[in-house]
């Protein structure tokens, strides 16, 4: 024992060994983190600043990064000027809610079937599920457009909503993996107690599946709410546009020789962003629980 402590004298003291130097924060660490967070926050502060600027300030490009004027009425103005911002918002809510409901309703049942029910051809079908994840949307985009055009669905919400009721490869995979981790004894016991397959799903599986389904709901909401290309392809009427397309529409089609109302566009951007922050804040524990190492390195 004594020999050991003697040896340790030459080394860093016990306390220092406990936190290797790689984990010790230096003033340089703090300086870097502060500069980086400040720089990354500039665009966010700028949105708020422009959103709170008067029309004159915006037209003269005289806004500052840090807000200097506070025209809070911009946030109510967007709902009563000729801009259909309220309509955009309502359209976004309608499309997103139906899309989320569709994915949550379908993915759970399909994923449960793939995880638990036995059927000939199931494994081959599951390979197809996985393979579909690799098909880029651009390939199916044009024939899908033709299909929806033939169905007379152009300029309606249907092309943006209906496909969600058929789930997709990623969500089926997600639920299937989630169910596979649950003990089989639970649904076997429920079967012996007289529940059928749908009964097992509805009474036993569905409550346990909630974290996975909420994660799917969050993914679907994030995607649908921010989707730009889908609405751009399918919706022509201003009154049908969701917010993401609407703010782009306002910013690009103002009257000739007149700058777009940037302050109101930025209010729109805030309306588009806030729900995402709230949803992330409320839902992050479900996302962590799912332990999905998705994400795409900054490229959204």
């Amino acid at each position: 024992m004594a020999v050991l402590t003697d040896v340790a004298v030459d080394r860093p003291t016990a306390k220092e060994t406990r936190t290797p130097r790689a984990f010790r924060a230096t003033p340089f660490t703090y300086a870097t983190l502060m500069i980086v967070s400040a720089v990354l926050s500039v665009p966010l502060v700028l949105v708020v600043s422009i959103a709170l600027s008067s029309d004159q300030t915006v037209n003269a490009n005289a806004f500052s990064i840090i807000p200097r004027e506070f025209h809070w009425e911009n946030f109510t103005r967007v709902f009563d000027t000729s801009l259909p911002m309220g309509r955009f918002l309502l359209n976004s809510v309608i499309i997103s809610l139906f899309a989320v409901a569709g994915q949550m309703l379908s993915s759970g049942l399909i994923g449960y079937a793939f995880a638990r029910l036995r059927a000939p051809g199931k494994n081959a079908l599951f390979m197809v599920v996985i393979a579909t994840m690799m098909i880029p949307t651009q390939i199916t985009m044009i024939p899908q457009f033709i299909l929806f055009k033939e169905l007379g669905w152009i300029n309606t919400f249907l092309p943006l909503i209906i496909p969600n009721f058929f789930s997709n490869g990623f969500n089926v995979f997600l639920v299937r993996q989630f169910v596979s981790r649950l003990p089989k004894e639970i649904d076997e016991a429920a079967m012996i107690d007289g529940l059928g397959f749908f009964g097992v799903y509805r009474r036993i599986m569905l409550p346990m599946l909630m974290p996975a389904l909420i994660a799917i709901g969050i993914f679907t909401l994030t995607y649908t709410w921010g989707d730009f290309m889908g609405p751009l392809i399918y919706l022509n009427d201003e009154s049908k546009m969701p917010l993401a397309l609407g703010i782009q529409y306002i910013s690009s089609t103002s009257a000739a020789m007149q700058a777009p109302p940037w302050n109101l566009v930025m209010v729109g951007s805030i309306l588009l962003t806030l729900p995402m922050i709230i949803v992330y804040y409320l839902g992050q524990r479900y996302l962590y629980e799912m332990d999905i190492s998705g994400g795409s390195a900054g490229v959204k």
Partner: protein
Amino acid sequence: MTNLAEAAPARAGAAPGSAPTRLAGLRSRRRKEALWFYLFASPWIVGFLVFLFGPMVASIYLSLTDWDSFTTPNFVGLDNYRQLLTEDPVFWTALKNTIYYSAISVPLGLLIGLWLANLLNKQVRARKLFRTLIYLPTLVPLVAAAMVFKMVLMPSGPLNDLLGLAGIPGPTWLLDPTWVKPSLILLSIWGVGSATVLLLAAMKGIPKELYEAAEVDGASPMRQFWSITVPQLTPIIFFNLVMGIIGAFQVFSQVYVLTRGATQAPEEASVMMVPFLFDQAFAFYHMGYASAISWLLFLVILGFTLIAFRTARKWVFYETEVK
């Protein structure tokens, strides 16, 4: 629902019969289970056939036709592909621009993410605050982010003001053919928080003993970073690299919002694959031509993904790997 609940006890009752009945009961139970499987899975099967498989087959056919979506398609064989690869300069420009964008934005984003994650992994005070500030931009929907960057990148906008403070005359960004692509890369780097958070979570999983041992052996923090942290993270870096490449090649909304309008850089400077495809399909109604572009885009993405997998063997480290 109710008849399902009744069916189960009946099945249980069938079990203790004689051997042939038991076998028949088992078989019918199996068949029932299979039926239920196909019933439950039917939405996905229908969706796959109607929204994926059918359109895929249609897309292959369309790519071999000349079609404006109103008249009957005119079969032209591989002519669309020939025209794209040998006659259409915009295709090659779009491909070059897209590769430029992906080849810089994806690795740069990962590198910065790795660097920030390493800083956040230290024992810093207010880590949560820093992490939140770095992650917040990733929650901004792309269109909103692009709107903001339109303002940030204005010739007299905040970015050039900042550069002016440092005595650097800033370029006109979106209006300048050489700077419009870096502008788009800048926007993608703004979302570096998602890679940061992901890599940070992975770093927390690296056993501390490795660092303690390296410390005892006298390795510097820099050495520990390159010899422990980075090798341990290669699987997740690789995953993000592949996903990043796939995502970056499909860039659309940012390009559409930032590079179109009354004042803009010439199209050749910023045209990318999906915006090019989109215009061909929905602005010019060249449905056949656009379908051919989509398949070429798919092949390019597939090619780069395969290259990533090929090279991965050399630099991705798996703990459980037996050589």
